[in-house]
């Protein structure tokens, strides 16, 4: 036996595959239960009362749930769009230019990734309570807590994630491609538009999906930034749980789970594009296939 690969039928093989099954069960049993009981016709979660779709009907009829779902989607789309633009610009600035204070900017940009959610949330709370007053005083802006503040706080953490993903992609790109574009009469903008952007597009798409997922999932930061009028779906569900759990929660969770799965699949597809079509290590020596054919 080489390298410890287990012979079929050996004790090791049994133990390993057994462990794998236990781990899978640990992961997926709760999900299966969640899905199963979302169809149970009984108010108590955990007691099967026959098949029903009524909890899903309730979800559709529940105006507050629908409202918060709508807020979630709008916040996710808007914060993703803005953080993709800002995050990509930040990545470009850090990878392609040298400027004063770059190191500090670099470190600060990653801060939201490493500081705890709660700290971020409290920061946002303070920022908004002061910010609202200043905004009203200076610009006469109406910045009550709600949709706008949630979106701003999501942008705040999403920028970091987007720029990390885009930067990884940029640093893998052959800088000579941009020089080649300049040499071929492109100006800076056109070199970006026709060469850099297509090269980093998979990174941007990946960053966007990550931002979308993070925004849809966030509870802690959103809780501090949301106001009485509007809140996102996860925060609303969190509040409902405190008032008692019914299979309605299950139904909502299943919908959220389905949305997550779709996003994950999309992100896998972009990953494939990344490795399949344009993601080769571009700085490498060109591969030779049939040099003798020349």
């Amino acid at each position, binding site marked *: 036996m080489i390298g410890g690969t287990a012979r079929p039928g050996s004790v090791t093989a049994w133990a390993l595959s057994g462990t794998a099954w236990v781990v899978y069960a640990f992961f997926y049993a709760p999900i299966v239960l969640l899905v199963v009981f979302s169809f149970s016709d009984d108010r108590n979660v955990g007691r099967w009362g026959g098949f029903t779709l009524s909890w899903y009907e309730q979800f559709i009829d529940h105006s507050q749930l629908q409202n918060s779902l709508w807020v979630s989607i709008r916040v996710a789309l808007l914060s993703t769009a803005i953080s993709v633009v800002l995050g990509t610009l930040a990545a470009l600035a850090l990878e392609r230019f040298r400027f004063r204070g770059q190191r500090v900017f670099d470190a600060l940009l990653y801060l939201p990734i490493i500081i705890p959610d709660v700290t971020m949330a409290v920061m946002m709370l303070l920022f908004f309570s002061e910010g609202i007053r200043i905004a009203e005083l200076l610009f006469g802006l109406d910045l009550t807590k709600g949709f706008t503040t949630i979106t701003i706080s999501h942008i705040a953490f999403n920028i970091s994630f987007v720029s990390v993903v885009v930067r990884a992609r940029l640093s893998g790109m*052959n800088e*000579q*491609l941009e*020089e*080649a*574009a*300049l*040499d*071929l*009469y*492109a*100006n800076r903008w*056109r070199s970006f538009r*026709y*060469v850099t952007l*297509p*090269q980093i597009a998979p990174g941007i798409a990946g960053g966007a999906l990550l931002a979308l997922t993070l925004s849809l999932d966030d509870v802690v930061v959103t809780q501090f930034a949301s106001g009485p009028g509007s809140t996102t779906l996860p925060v609303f569900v969190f509040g409902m749980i405190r008032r008692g759990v019914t299979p309605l929660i299950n139904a909502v969770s299943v919908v959220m789970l389905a949305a997550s799965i779709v996003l994950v699949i999309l992100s896998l597809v972009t990953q494939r594009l990344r490795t399949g*079509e*344009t993601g*080769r290590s*571009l*700085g490498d*020596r*060109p*591969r*030779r*296939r*049939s*040099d*003798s*054919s*020349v």
Partner: protein
Amino acid sequence: MPSAVPAVGLHRITKRFGDVVAVDTVDLEIADGEFFALLGPSGCGKTTTLRLIAGLEFPTTGRLRIFGDEVGTLPPNRRPVNTVFQNYALFPHMTAEENVAFGLRMRKVSKAEIEPRVRDAIALVHMEGMEQRRPDQLSGGQQQRVALARALVNSPKVLLLDEPLGALDLKLREAMQLELKALQREVGITFVFVTHDQGEALAMSDRIGVMDGGRLLQVGTPEEIYARPANRFVADFIGHANLLDGMVTGPDQVTLTNGITIAAPSNIQPGGHVAVTLRPEQALLHPWGGAPEHHTSVDGQVEQVTYLGNALIYRVSFQWMHIDVRSENRPGGDPVSAGDEVTVSWEPSSVAVVQD
């Protein structure tokens, strides 16, 4: 008709990167229609010189002209030059055809004009049938052709090539040398060609500029550079040379460090430390004392014989120095082997005296 104005003129160009002087007060004029090679070891500043001409770097001091126009501070997209990059830098997300069309598209040439020009350029480099392939579906040699077409389609006034054959294997490289040279004659564009391979430079160029440590040491035709190297570095770098250290001790006379005095014409003042360079193929091997009258000769002993297939290299030692003699491998003639006493001779005019 080639223009009388130099295609490229560098006037006391210096380029510094922090403390590193990559290009050091270089003066150089490259004529219209010339195939010019910049030759030197790795890190000597060849690429930087090329990038200065392309506009991808800007000179720290000095002036740069292309066909008489001052271009020192113009960005690359406003210079009438194009570059074939060292690893080709083809756009991976575009087909061969799209790569070739890129420059024309960026200059907003009409679609009707782009199409035939791209077709001609692809035909020029013999890549018909490969138009729809992406760079990663092409071999190294084919990528090289696309890179050439992508540059030439723009009809640049000067084409810059940075070690374009460096990534190819030997056979293909030799074939491409001939083809590139033929291509240059056909299009009549000035080529500035960077290489660290002296054989390549000798074989392809009208003139060669030898660089070392950021400085341009010598500019001349391959024959001039080979036969009359300007200094020790050039003599050593180009081809194979015997470098015999010594001191000028009289008019046209050098005393070698082993005490032997030989005739070596130069205009260096007596007392100057020099090296006498002698190409192995210029030296002749004779039986002891058998040198022709008018030749310079030294007596010695064969130390080593190296068989090269088409030639033999005899290493002859004389008083702690040695000379390599190259002789073509022809049938007949007395076989010489290690330990034989021999005389080495050469035409007095075939040596060059160089300083450091």
